[in-house]
């Protein structure tokens, strides 16, 4: 994986710094973050709250601009990548539009791109199939459980076939059982779409189970404190969570936190 990363980084950050100006103080949210993510790689940004992991994701998504440093996404700068629709994003809450049926929520990005209606409808059904929500096309978001809503949000992010999927703690509001099941489903979806995934989480086991590499961030100021390779074979299975290797990785990541 690291060999590929050296060749064509899909996402590249160089000395990225993010400062916020509040009324009382000048906050350094991220300090000198440099990292490369390879095409097709699944990486997690892991850390406690306040470490800047969500800020880092929002920088990649061009929802905010860094105060210093350089961000390249799919060979373009972050803004160009956003305008070229290179990535799909999934937020902590599903952010579905209440007035749209499930299928129309999923095809919203395609609608904005001017894709024909018949193609959109086909795509919606295909994606519902992919995320395991067959038969829910004509439901409204509020008729679905929290886990199902988040799956709709994933389907929506995948609808324009993005090269990169940015996910900001997408399962953190769900119960442990649903979260673990959705982790497994996400991996199976990923194996089919082959996009690069950047996954923000504060759960150590979740980051290990999903990722090729885990970027560990520490707070005050937010910074990259370690990069941990996850050598677990793929496809990953639920019972790997109980393997000694898994626990070893948990311990290693826990040790790599600084100043928490």
């Amino acid at each position, binding site marked *: 994986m690291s060999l590929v990363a050296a060749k064509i980084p899909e996402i590249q950050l160089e000395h990225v710094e993010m400062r916020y100006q509040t009324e009382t103080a000048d906050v350094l949210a991220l300090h000198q973050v440099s990292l490369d993510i390879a095409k097709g790689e699944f990486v997690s940004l892991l850390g406690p709250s306040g470490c800047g992991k969500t800020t880092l994701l929002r920088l990649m*998504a*061009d*929802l905010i601009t860094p105060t210093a440093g350089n961000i390249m996404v799919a060979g373009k700068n972050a803004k160009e990548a*956003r*305008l070229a*629709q290179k*990535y799909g*994003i999934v*937020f902590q*809450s599903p*952010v579905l*539009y*209440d*007035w749209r049926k499930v299928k129309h929520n999923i095809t*919203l*990005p395609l*609608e*904005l791109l001017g894709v024909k209606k018949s193609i959109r409808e086909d795509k919606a059904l295909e994606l519902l199939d992919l995320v395991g929500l067959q038969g829910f096309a004509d439901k*409204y978001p*509020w*008729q*679905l*459980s*929290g886990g199902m809503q988040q799956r709709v949000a994933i389907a929506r992010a995948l609808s324009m076939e993005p090269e990169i999927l940015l996910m900001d703690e997408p399962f953190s509001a769900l119960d442990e059982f649903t979260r673990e099941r959705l982790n497994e489903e996400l991996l199976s979806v990923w194996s089919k779409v082959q996009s690069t995934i950047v996954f923000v989480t504060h759960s150590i086991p979740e980051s290990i189970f999903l990722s090729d590499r885990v970027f560990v961030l520490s707070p005050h100021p937010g910074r990259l404190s370690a990069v941990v390779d996850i050598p677990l074979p793929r496809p990953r299975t639920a019972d790997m969570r109980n393997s000694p290797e898994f626990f070893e990785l948990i311990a290693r990541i826990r040790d790599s936190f600084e100043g928490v």
Partner: protein
Amino acid sequence: MKLNRALMRNRALPLFVWICGLLVLWEAVSWWLLHVAKTPLAQSKLPYVHEVALTLWQYSGTLFREGGATFGNAGVGFLIGALSGVLLAVLMSLSRTIEQLAFPYAVASQMIPILGLAPIIYGIMRDEQLSRIIISGYITFFPVALNMLRGLRSVDPSALELMHSYAAKPWAVYWKLRFPAALPGLFSGLKIAAPLAVTGAILVELMGAQRGIGVIMLRNLYYGPSHTYMFWSTVLVGALLGMASYWLMSLVERLVAPWQPEFRPQGGSR
């Protein structure tokens, strides 16, 4: 569905009993005022319900025609007022400068008493229909603009970021996100404004007009005690027009924005 129907039955019965009780009480007090207390002008104070109902029935044609004239003008004014309210709300949501320029005047406009404004408008226009339309529109405009603006601003920040991440054009953000999200606000504005628009139209008619429910209301008030039942009938019709306008807005809301939490079936939420 079954649950829904049961609820309706449970709600309908108390309402029926309540209305019947009220009617009986009304008739009793009315009789007492007239025959026991022997109050002067007893029937003007609290007329027999059955007499008013009879008058309503006998003069239903006239009342319907005049009520229709009032309702029609109020409706046109309401539509114009609602449209300009929505337009101003959109402009204010687009630019803080426009909001700072326009908002104080919009508020100030609502400080002018309608009772004083109506004769001025009538004096300028010299046309009762036009005056009714203007006053109804004038009343409608403010609550609609205020509630619509609030709706446009109340959009979930993440929903906006989502649109931003799709590189959506500003008009698409309005059309596909801000407008639908503002509909509940818009309809609360419309539901406040609709009965007020009717009241406003009736008020203009009291200033001197040829047609409308307000005209026969005033006329029968002048005629005195002999026309008290007719006067009460016009008041009732005025109230009914106001209610009808509210119901109409509620109905349109159900058709246009049926996805709102309050329209969801009981126990059907996650």
